[in-house]
């Protein structure tokens, strides 16, 4: 196959993918020793690893449990592409819109206080490497890029366990008849619900304090073709990501709501602490309904129809709960390694998944070529933005958790009250209102002393 990525080669890629899937899975299941590495899961991390290995001239086998790559995957979402763009050409990738505006919004019960960012640069290529996508489309396309580069993909096949020989991991067991496949290296890219890694003792089950539950709906506007452009003020391929916090977004729980614009649909959802969902008995369905009904949110979604409902968990233990990344014969990447940054301001996992898949594959390729060692994967990741970012924000989650009642309930209400006060139209002098507004906020944070303390507690945010 040539490597010009025209429409037609991509179609060929899809056929090839199916043929190979048929061959490998059904006709000749014995592939022992045929592959340099087996990769569990054709999500972003898995396909990044497969593509990297194939480009180095090696033969990876990519195993996916869904009917196609992406069929089982759910995210918000905004795909961050700085690493993907280095691995492959994004022309022809199924992207929905680039992010031209980010908006952060505090919702109290009835009020909204928001900040909007629209840097002009985001309208220019490469658009800050931020695009809305559907994983069903994008993951399939990304896996095809790996297949075109020489990787083999098997779908509808679930890895059920790992094979160990003399203590080292030496392959995988699958749910196919005679489904054992031996290979010198295994990359675990199975996402956050890591049944295989946990079953093999490579990682512990995360405690529910470090898990968020998310429910999402993709909505269309059947009666109004211009609804998305008009309501979100979009031109061309520009799109928005709106992030919501506070009581009005997710009730008493720790987390947030989101709206992202796709080509002709919007993705709306909530993601919040599973521990809170359980202890405060706050179901995902009700939480999503309440968020969608907030007076600041509802007008954006008026007369929408549900295209698809979905749900998923997010591992958010960050740097603190990261498992060992390197094992004898196996490497953990992406969500399996807990590589998600979710701290309110950022929700990033796609970029970390791809970056980690790339470094894991590079370590395996170097090892096979005789001038490397698997452990170099952990070092490379530590020096990359992945671990650096996770460590940088490790303190934030904890602190926000301690202050959450103030940050998400009392303060949003106080700020909304203060703005109402500040801009109040009556016959009193502005100064009276300004003083009262200031007093309202200060009272909530505990006076000037309290404000200073709060600023100190969060000063690292802007450092």
């Amino acid at each position, binding site marked *: 196959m040539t490597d010009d990525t025209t429409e037609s080669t991509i179609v060929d890629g899809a056929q090839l993918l199916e043929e190979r899937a048929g061959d490998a899975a059904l006709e000749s299941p014995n592939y022992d020793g045929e592959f340099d590495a087996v990769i569990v899961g054709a999500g972003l991390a898995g396909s990044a690893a497969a593509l990297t290995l194939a480009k180095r001239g090696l033969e990876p086998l990519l195993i996916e*449990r*869904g*009917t*196609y790559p*992406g*069929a*089982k*995957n*759910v*995210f918000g979402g905004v795909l961050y592409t700085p690493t993907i763009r280095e691995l492959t050409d994004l022309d022809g990738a199924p992207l929905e819109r680039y992010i031209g505006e980010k908006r952060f919004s505090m919702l109290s019960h009835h009020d909204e206080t928001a900040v909007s960012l629209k840097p002009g640069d985001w309208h220019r290529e490469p658009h800050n490497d931020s695009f809305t996508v*559907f*994983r*069903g*489309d994008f993951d399939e396309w990304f896996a095809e890029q790996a297949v075109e580069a020489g990787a083999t993909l098997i*779908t*509808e*096949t*679930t890895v059920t366990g790992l094979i160990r020989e003399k203590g080292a991991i030496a392959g995988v067991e699958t*749910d*196919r008849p005679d489904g054992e496949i031996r290979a010198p290296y295994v990359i675990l890219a199975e996402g956050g*619900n890591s*049944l295989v890694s946990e079953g093999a003792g490579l990682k512990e*089950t*995360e*405690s*529910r304090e470090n*898990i968020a*539950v*998310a*429910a999402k*709906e*993709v909505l269309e506007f059947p009666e109004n073709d211009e609804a998305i452009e008009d309501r979100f003020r979009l031109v061309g391929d520009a799109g928005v990501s709106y992030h919501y916090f506070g009581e009005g977004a997710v009730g008493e729980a720790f987390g947030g709501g989101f709206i992202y614009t796709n080509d002709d*649909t919007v*993705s709306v959802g909530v993601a919040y602490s*599973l521990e809170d*969902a*359980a202890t405060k*008995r*706050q*179901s*995902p*369905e009700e939480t*999503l*309904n309440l968020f*969608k*009904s*907030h*007076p600041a949110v*509802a*007008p954006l*979604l*008026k007369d929408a129809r*549900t*295209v*698809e*409902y*979905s*749900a*998923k*968990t997010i591992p958010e233990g960050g740097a603190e709960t990261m498992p060992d990344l390197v094992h004898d014969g196996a490497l953990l990447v992406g969500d399996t390694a807990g590589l998600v940054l979710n701290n309110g301001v950022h929700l990033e996992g796609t970029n970390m998944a791809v970056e980690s898949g790339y470094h894991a594959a590079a370590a395996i390729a170097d090892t096979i070529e005789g001038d490397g060692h698997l452990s170099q994967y952990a070092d490379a990741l530590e020096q990359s933005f992945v671990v650096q970012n996770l460590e940088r924000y490790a303190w934030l989650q904890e602190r926000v958790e301690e202050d959450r009642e103030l940050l998400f309930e009392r303060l949003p209400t106080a700020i909304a009250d203060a703005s109402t006060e500040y801009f109040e139209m009556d016959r009193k002098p502005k100064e009276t209102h300004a003083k009262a507004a200031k007093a309202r906020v200060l009272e909530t944070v505990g006076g000037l002393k309290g404000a200073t303390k709060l600023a100190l507690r969060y000063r690292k945010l802007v450092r």
Partner: protein
Amino acid sequence: MSVSPRIPDTDIQNDSMEDRLYTVKYDDPGDSHLDVKVPSICADSCETADCVSICPADVWRRDDGEVPTIAYENCLECSSCRFACTYDNVVWEYPTTGSGVSYKHG
């Protein structure tokens, strides 16, 4: 313009759970991929039934003092119940050979 403008209409039509689940493509594996490990823990020890309150698809239902019923064919494979059960009492496997949910817009 009228003398006093109307307050914005924030009536949002939220779908019922049934309608929501109807939007999800599902291929029934025939057998449940979910179960409980020790039924008596659910019936006798567990007071909170967190599996019920956190499930985004109403798969789990429990009457007081009983073992939950599991409508596995509504499962969105989100994995929340596996993490939420503080008794570690949920059996959670993947539906076999590609069955279960298939999302298009995930």
